[in-house]
């Protein structure tokens, strides 16, 4: 009995010590004087030289933290443990965060550089009037394919995927919006369509694709495509540009029938303690030269029209990542369809997954 009590005491003591250390570490890290700015961003999604430059120019100290999913980011901001001043969620998350009251409205008078953003990317449905967000990078959903494995065959649109020669060659991404969107787009319907007949039609069309689908995977698709496990993948343009840098045979195409247009955006979350510095940072990142340098580092597409002048011609004119205005016309941003419709999308996607060859 005595030994048992001793054991309990030791455990309690160790726990207390650990707790103390953690709180000490936290306070030494997250000091929140008026002179710091905490940025919450995706991993490797900014040129760190720019952070140094921002610190030098403004005298504000930047604390940089990263997340790997929108959901994880939102949960952490909801909890409010850390005082994030800037966060960079994707567009569908902005609507949700706004509804949960997690965002601070932007003061446009403090963001003169907002004028540099391409008009196409301003005032979009997920944030009318850019009240809460400013686009950071944008991209598309498209097809990445290995031209060598396909024997030089070219892919230009969704319809090409239904080719009988492509048996077991396609990796789809495990997302209901992406895959159902592909089905809808291939039938020339909007990828925000909620008409039951259209959805059914899209699902039937997708079922016909099953023989060509090798697997429906998540982030592993990068690894699998790089390793030439399959010749074709349904991916986001960001993923495409990353794996294309690793494997020269890979090509990316935005399907001619239309596809999804996505945005990652700078917002100021409720947790902020330094609204002023946050505005300064957003305005800094909107500077054409800064945006150009950042875009070259991250190699995603920048929405900053003025920045394009500072970037190499071959990058800006690369239609794979800066599609022509005619094609962008056909691209659609995911609308928040509401829980019920989203559930319908997921149900059909589940049925599609269960469809056997």
């Amino acid at each position, binding site marked *: 009995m005595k030994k048992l009590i001793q054991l309990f005491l030791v455990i309690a003591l160790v726990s207390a010590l650990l707790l103390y250390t953690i709180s000490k570490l936290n306070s030494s890290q997250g000091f929140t004087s008026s002179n710091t700015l905490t940025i919450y961003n995706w991993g490797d999604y900014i040129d760190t030289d720019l952070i140094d430059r921002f610190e030098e120019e403004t005298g504000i100290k930047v604390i940089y933290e990263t997340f790997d999913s929108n*959901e994880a980011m939102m949960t952490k901001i909801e909890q409010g443990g850390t005082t994030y001043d800037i966060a960079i969620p994707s567009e569908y998350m902005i609507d949700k965060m706004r509804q949960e009251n997690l965002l601070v409205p932007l003061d446009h008078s403090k963001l003169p550089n907002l004028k540099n953003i391409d008009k196409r990317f301003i005032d979009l449905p997920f944030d009318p009037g850019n009240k809460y967000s400013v686009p950071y990078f944008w991209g598309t959903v498209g097809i990445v394919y290995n031209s060598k494995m396909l024997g030089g065959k070219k892919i230009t649109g969704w319809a090409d995927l239904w080719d009988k020669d492509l048996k077991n060659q396609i990796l789809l991404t495990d997302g209901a919006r992406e895959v159902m969107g592909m089905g809808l787009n291939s039938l020339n319907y909007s990828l925000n369509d909620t008409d039951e007949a259209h959805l059914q039609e899209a699902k039937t069309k997708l079922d016909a694709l099953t023989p060509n689908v090798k697997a429906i995977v998540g982030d592993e698709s990068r690894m699998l495509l790089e390793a030439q496990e399959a010749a074709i993948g349904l991916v986001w343009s960001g993923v495409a540009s990353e794996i294309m840098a690793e494997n020269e045979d890979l090509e990316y195409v935005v399907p001619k029938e239309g596809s999804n247009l996505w945005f990652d955006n700078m917002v100021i979350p409720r947790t902020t303690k330094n609204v002023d510095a946050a505005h300064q940072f957003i305005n800094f990142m909107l500077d054409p030269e800064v945006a150009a340098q950042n875009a070259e580092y991250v190699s995603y597409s920048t929405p900053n029209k003025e920045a394009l002048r500072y970037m190499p011609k071959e990058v800006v004119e690369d239609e794979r990542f800066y599609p022509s205005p005619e094609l962008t016309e056909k691209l659609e941003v995911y609308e928040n369809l509401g829980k*019920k419709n989203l559930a319908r999308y997921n149900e059909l996607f589940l049925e599609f*997954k269960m469809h056997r060859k």
Partner: protein
Amino acid sequence: MQNKLSKNIFFIPYVLWIALFVIAPILLILYYSFFDIEGNLSLVNYQKFFTPVYLKMTLSSFWYAFLITAISLLVAYPTALLLTKTKHKQLWLLLIIVPSWINLLLKAYAFIGIFGTYGVANGFLEVIGIGSQQILFTDFSFIFVSVYIFIPFMILPIFNALDELNPTLLDAANDLGASRWMTFRRVIFPLTLDGVKTGCQVVFIPALSLFMLTRLIAGNRVITLGTAIEQHFLVTQDWGMGSTIAVFLIIIMFLIMFVTGNRKQGV
């Protein structure tokens, strides 16, 4: 008197644990299952469960769980029998258990490499002249990897049962003229049946709701009830439907426990 008091005190953690982590979650799941996606009280989820989509999913989950359990048993029983006959049986047993200390995700990723088009398995098939096959993302790879992961849990209870078997019984069977097969069928197997039942329970029940392997190894070509629950909770945020599937899983598991349960019988 004091003894009784301390007994009651020791009872507190148990009761708290059961109430907080067993009964409360089950009640919560049951509670959530009565709400539709818009948060209205309704039985629509239960109605939906009896549509072809979910019935088909239930059947296929059962089928795969059955295959995994059956193959595990077929491999595990002879292995356990062999282990009890070896000299350093604890060491051999340890070697079988060691892989279960490695993170499941890591093992799954390793198998992606092994079974891939340019992986070791296909390299071997090339060498022996069969030629490269699609192994990854097939039913075969899914069942193989699942069996690999579950097999220690099948071997352990069977090994324990065999180990506890009184050797004099085997001698008696032998003296009375039973053949080796007869001894196995009439003496060894019936006496280790409890181990087999435990093993089957420990494998079948988790196999019924496997979800990560279905994506990593089966490329979502195998959909189990576990996959559907994951999707409903994380993507659709239709907690009601997810909970309803979970309720059915709980009911099914109780039924299995009841059927295969170790009802104590006099020897």
